[in-house]
């Protein structure tokens, strides 16, 4: 037993809760399930905070590097002589940080859902799934080895699938869940192949071994190349593809907007705060390896992040579904994090990007969960997702309004809210490494502010809309989480991330880079201003602008036709040009051959029936001819 053995409870409690509710949930009142789930998460949250406090502060000797601790490990499956899949718990700065993020957001969502999901059919099921998700996510972040991560990675995917498809009678939800699972699974294939390659080269799955300074991967650096990239780069790029799928990076992002079909708390938890950042976490987890052996892969990471953030931000400006706007915003923000990792170096101040990425992950979890939950409160009160059907809600929903505004300001990067700090560090890191990417991100910062306030003004200001039922503020179970998260969004910027979560575990000196910060604040303010002008009051300006942008606007509005492209690939190519021919081939050629054999035998049987003519003379003829033929064959020819 070691000091951290209680961390074992962190994933196990949600698992137990899941099994409990899943197996017995239908036996008692739904609300009890909710309470059980919430209570479980409360314990988890407390334990997570205990862990964080002890790890970062109480047990830590100041000035030394944070080391990674393997507090628990069992053999799960023996594969080869060297490769064993273990299940265990690894504590290091990023995993502990993730514990905090996940438990906080999850706990809030649990509480929030008590109100939001009240009366829904399948309330117990919802909590069971939430617990399953929490278990999987916690297992993922605590993974000691890449294969354990992959295991929980898949579990997270399936919980996401189940939660997106929570309203299973709704066809759109069903197809969204399907899409989410399949797209991420496609990406996971890359992950899996990456693991195969990596594990084959290094003979280990273990993170500590992989990322150590004498990593077995190092010996393969000069190894074989394929299309100009070394095998290791390929492996790590493939691993990144897995991460990109989960984190909805371009072009594997298409599932994320659709995933908003799930209940809003789910979107907050999974598709904003926790699961979607798993990709970032994955890259961060292997970061030393990336930076040591495959810097080329990091370039890819950076560019994918950059492009995704810009791409998503543009689309976000054109969407009317508030959850979709938030979804694209999420994608955009994750792009930031990826980019930060991609441009980061290793160790000391070079690792600024790494730190910024994690920091942004943290703050983003807070404010994005806040925004989603706020959006949920809005939807809850007006029964619609479409911002065109909203307006002037600030009167009806004061608490929601206020917290939502905080969220918007945070994401826009207005100081001294947390988003400002983390985004600033990212921009600083990008500027340092790659000015082009910096320019993109700088632009995105402005767009972000614009679309968030477009949303904000449209919903809370703008036209006065008549509602069938007067919207009313949500109950306390829903507003308290909003407030808690708003608190987090405001203050998490003051956490000393540069001391806690760094690439090499050692603290380094970080400060606000005013040459970056001031312009970014300015562009954010500019974005807000534009939004204010366009959407503060109902006007025709947005429409005019949209018209003047023409094709570009339509493209953005249609998400640049990515969905259509995917539909084309899946339905036309895979379904019609692969699957259908395969099925046809199987029925007609393969099976047909078998039937043909049978048919020819039958046919032959009919063809030779004339020999059995019933005429004894013919029999005699065949007899004699047969004998003579045998003579000819065996006497004369043989």
């Amino acid at each position: 037993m070691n000091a951290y053995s209680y961390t074992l409870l962190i994933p196990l409690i949600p698992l137990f809760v899941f099994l409990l509710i899943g197996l017995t949930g239908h036996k008692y009142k739904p609300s009890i399930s909710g309470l059980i789930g919430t209570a479980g998460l409360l314990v988890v949250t407390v334990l997570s905070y205990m862990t964080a406090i002890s790890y970062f502060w109480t047990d830590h000797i100041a000035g030394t590097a944070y080391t990674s601790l393997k507090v628990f490990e069992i053999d799960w499956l023996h594969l080869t002589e060297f490769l064993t899949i273990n299940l265990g718990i690894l504590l290091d700065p990023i995993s502990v940080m993730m514990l905090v993020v996940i438990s906080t957001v999850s706990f809030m969502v649990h509480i929030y859902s008590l109100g939001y999901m009240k009366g829904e059919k399948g309330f117990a099921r919802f909590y069971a799934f939430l617990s399953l998700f929490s278990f999987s996510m916690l297992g993922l972040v605590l993974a000691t080895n890449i294969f354990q991560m992959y295991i929980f990675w898949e579990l997270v995917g399936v919980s996401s699938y189940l939660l997106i498809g929570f309203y299973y009678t709704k066809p759109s939800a069903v197809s969204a869940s399907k899409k989410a699972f399949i797209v991420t699974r496609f990406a996971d294939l890359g992950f899996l192949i990456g693991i195969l390659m990596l594990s084959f080269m290094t003979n280990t799955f273990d993170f500590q071994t992989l990322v150590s300074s004498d990593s077995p991967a190092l010996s393969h650096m000069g190894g074989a190349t394929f299309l100009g990239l070394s095998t290791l780069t390929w492996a790590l790029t493939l691993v990144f593809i897995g991460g990109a799928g989960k984190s909805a990076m371009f072009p594997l992002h298409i599932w994320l907007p659709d995933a908003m079909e799930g209940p809003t708390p789910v979107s907050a938890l999974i598709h904003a705060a926790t699961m979607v950042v798993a990709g970032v976490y994955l890259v961060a987890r292997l970061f030393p390896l990336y930076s040591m052996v495959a810097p080329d892969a990091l370039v890819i990471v950076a560019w994918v992040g950059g492009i995704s953030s810009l791409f998503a931000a543009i689309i976000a400006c054109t969407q009317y579904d508030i959850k979709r706007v938030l979804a694209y915003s999420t994608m955009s923000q994750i792009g930031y994090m990826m980019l930060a990792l991609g441009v980061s170096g290793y160790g000391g101040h070079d690792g600024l990007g790494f730190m910024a990425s994690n920091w942004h992950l943290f703050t983003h979890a807070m404010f994005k969960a806040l925004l989603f939950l706020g959006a949920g409160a809005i939807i809850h009160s007006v029964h619609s997702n479409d911002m065109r059907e909203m307006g002037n809600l600030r009167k009806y929903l004061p608490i929601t309004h206020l917290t939502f505004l905080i969220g918007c300001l945070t994401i826009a990067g207005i100081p001294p809210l947390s988003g400002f700090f983390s985004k600033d560090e990212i921009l600083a890191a990008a500027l340092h490494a790659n000015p082009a990417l910096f320019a993109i991100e700088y632009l995105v910062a402005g767009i972000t502010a614009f679309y968030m306030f477009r949303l904000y003004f449209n919903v809370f200001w703008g036209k006065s809309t008549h509602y069938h039922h007067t919207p009313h503020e949500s109950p306390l179970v829903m507003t308290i989480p909003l407030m808690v998260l708003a608190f987090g969004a405001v203050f998490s910027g003051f956490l000393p991330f540069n001391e806690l979560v760094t690439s090499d575990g050692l603290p380094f000196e970080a400060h606000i880079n005013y040459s970056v910060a001031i312009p970014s604040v300015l562009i954010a303010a500019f974005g807000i201003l534009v939004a204010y002008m366009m959407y503060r009051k109902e006007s025709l300006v947005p429409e005019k602008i949209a018209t003047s942008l023409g094709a570009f606007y339509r493209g953005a509005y249609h998400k640049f036709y990515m969905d259509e492209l995917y539909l084309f690939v899946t339905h036309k190519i895979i379904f019609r040009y692969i699957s259908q021919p395969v099925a046809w081939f199987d029925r007609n050629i393969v099976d047909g051959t078998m039937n043909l054999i049978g048919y020819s035998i039958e046919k032959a049987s009919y063809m030779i029936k004339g020999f059995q003519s019933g005429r004894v003379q013919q029999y005699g003829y065949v007899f004699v001819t047969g004998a003579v033929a045998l003579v000819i064959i065996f006497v004369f020819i043989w």
Partner: protein
Amino acid sequence: MNILTLFVLIPVVTMLAIGFSKSMKSIRVVAAIGMGIQLILAAFLVYAYLTERAAGNTAEMLFTYDALWFPSLNIHYSIGVDGISVAMIALTAVVVFAGIFASWEVEYLSKEFFISLILLASGVFGFFISIDLFTMLLFYELAVIPMYLLIGIWGSGPKEYSAMKLTLMLMGGSALLMVGLLGIYFYSAPDGTPLTWNLLEISKNTIPIEMQRFLFPFTFIGFGILGALFPFHTWSPDGHASAPTAVSMLHAGVLMKLGGYGAFRVAIFLMPDAAQEQAWIFLLLTGTSVVYGAFGAIFQKDLKYINAYSSVSHCGLVLFAILMMNQTALNGAVIQMISHGLMTALFFALIGMIYGRTHTRLINEMGGLMKVMPFLSVVYVIAGLASLGLPGLSGFVAEMTIFIGSFQHTDSFHRMLTIIAAASIVITAVYILRVVATLLYGPIRNDHYNHLTDARWFEKLSTVTLLVCIAAIGIAPLWLSDMINFSLAPIVTKLSMATSSFVSIF
């Protein structure tokens, strides 16, 4: 009495008891009791086996028993088990047990039904305990033939056609097989020593390479046909589609495993040199069938066809892994056999139960079943997740072991194939989710389905039994994997001694 003999004896006794049963109720109760005892026995066997091993018994086969049967041909009734067979026996016991309950309500000629079913089971048990090639073949064919009646009498759709096709193709397979086995027999011992059918003894002898080259394809394809080797798999979709529930379960769940088990136990084990040489051909075939089956499944509309094609894909993976011929892949192959056996049995059980209620198997005609039969639907989803390789369920363990194992080959041929095979997990996800989405989710498409009932106790028992096993393997695979691994070691040692001429071909 040797514990293994009981595995054949209990079914026989059960069949007799059923034969003397009068009412339908007593028939099925007798069947359930018999197979229940069998299940307990299987569990005990696993326990006993592990204890023996833990006690340090390193014999290749445990619980052996040997009786001379036909002295002049040196045919023995020779039985014994290693970890692999123990696992397969346990699988069989579980599936048969579940199958009995899945067919609880067979009314038409129920006595005959249960007798045939148990006859089939006894063939399978016999096959797995056999060490002697002759008895192996005997039990193999014994297991195949009741299929004809089971499908023909109690099946649905074009049952006569399917039953005939299935039987003939499988018997065609055993034609190849018999040639292979006979050839093995006549080269089973060095000149001057008596020939033998005993697997273990044959394995000590090296069959001349020319003969191996000749016999290996016979043996492998012979077993492969039952293992749904592309392009000899077409009996499988039609056969499964027409078969009654329990038969599909047993067939896909257990009988198809005879193919994989045999291909590995006989073809590869006894003729490693030829296997090394010719593996690439069959790897291409099986690699194809993994992807091909999955793509084929996407397009199907009939639940059973979907599952049948899925079986083609999954069983293709078994043969694929077997042909990789290293310890990890072989281990994966065995786990995959068990895993696929359990989940495909579960699938077929569920399909049968759903069909029994909706009277259609076309997914387009159904929808929203989750609402009316939550239990069955949830189990279906879990089975689907197992099939697409979700961690925590058995499919994942098997597939990952196979992929890791296959990837241990250092040449790009094997690796590319591995990657292609791995790609099947995505395609699998596509068709599984498609089914789940169309069948279980969405609005109810037919009003009349609103009145359907959920699973009854025996159906629950049947599905839960399978489900528990799937989850047990998925959550704690280590005991199973280690049990198999231990038994694989001598086989792999023999394989590695085989001259690898693979490289020379490429």
